[in-house]
């Protein structure tokens, strides 16, 4: 039959291989991740506006609510649970230091977005940082401290302190 409602796929999440996993094609990636216990990825608006569900797919930040599980065949995914390298550990410490989270709902998306900002290895001013995180809502409105943290992370990364 052409086209199917279930699909069997292979992928890697946080360095763990998943083979021959059958998923309903209409399920979005965010729901799938949470269904296997990776509940660090938060589902907010399910229309791409809030950024809480942002994960890394093949090295790029994407909205997990706007990707179907059926589309991730052969992909490498990183979620907030997998941000355990030295760089991201130090970034998390910087977030703590600046109190760049209150309720924590947006934090997983903010961290994945910060990772992508750091990958570009470019110095950004505060206004540019705000543009970069414009796709991530923080409803505690703690933007000031989040921008503080990202500003320090960018500077430290350029100086090589985050290795």
């Amino acid at each position, binding site marked *: 039959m052409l086209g199917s*409602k279930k699909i069997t796929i292979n992928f890697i999440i946080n360095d763990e291989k998943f083979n021959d996993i059958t998923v309903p094609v209409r399920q979005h990636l965010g729901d799938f991740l949470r269904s296997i216990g990776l509940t660090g990825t938060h589902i907010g608006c399910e229309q791409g506006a809030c950024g809480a569900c942002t994960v890394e797919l093949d090295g790029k930040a994407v909205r997990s609510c*706007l*990707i179907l599980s059926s589309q991730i065949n052969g992909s490498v995914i990183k979620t907030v649970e997998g941000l355990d390298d030295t760089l991201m550990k130090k970034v998390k410490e910087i977030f703590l230091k600046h109190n760049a989270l209150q309720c924590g709902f947006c934090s997983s998306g903010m961290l994945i977005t910060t990772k992508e900002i750091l990958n570009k290895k470019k110095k950004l001013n505060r206004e540019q940082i705000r543009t970069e995180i414009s796709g991530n809502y923080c409803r505690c409105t703690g933007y000031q401290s989040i921008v503080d943290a990202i500003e320090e992370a960018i500077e430290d990364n350029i100086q090589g302190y985050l290795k």
Partner: protein
Amino acid sequence: MKSPDFCYYEALSIEDAIKFKSNDLEAVILAGGQSLIPALNMRLSSPSCLIDISKIKELKNITKDNNFIYIGSAVTHSEVMQNKFIIDHLPVLIDVLNMVAHPAIRNKGTHGGSIAYGDPAAELPAFVVAANAEIILMGLNGIRTIQASDFYHGLFETDIQDDEILTCIKYPILKNNQEILFDEIYRRHGDYAMAGVVANIEILNNKIDNLKLVFFATGTKPEVALKTSELIIKDGYDYSNVKNMIKNELDFESDLNSNAEMKLHLATILTNKVLKLMET
């Protein structure tokens, strides 16, 4: 907010996708899905099947010859922004794409997807019309090319036929005396505009020799202000007159974030802003 039930089919080639689409008129094309999947999640649409074309290699190239740049429909916005041909020959497109949603959405959303979807408040449909681009479609009878200005019929309505798939967008390379300028007004960076303008301008002897003003987020589709453009070419640019000219030519439609009167006001301000840039 979960999508309705549908089938999924990963197309292996353009021909394969065309065949599937022409056999199932309720099926829709999935490229990046950054507009389609929100629409599904909100149950605004319930297709029988999604035909995924995002992995078809022929749709993922950007090429160039002496006169044109060709962008494959499944190239993502992020890929367009990093492409050397675009950086060298059509840098204004990078400024435009910077306004299209947010980095995480541009990493997945595609050039052809945005143009085929035809959201009246989106930047790319107005850009292709202003840039005099051609839209290349493939169907059961082969390839068909249509001018971008003839492509949009109405609200989310385009000239794509049941058996056709948008495969490529063909942009003329700008002449030395030609420039495309773009501006928009928005509430939050990356949101749809409250009003926007794209102007394709040719300058000869310090005067506007040719002009095409295209507005978006003002009506049901990208709106070309042909008469206004002609009057500005003929009589020169007169600040005090712009609002009347635009008002006489275009019908503005209210939407959720601004009413028609406000959109007319914003369109006037934006026209003044881009034309002022030409004076300096």
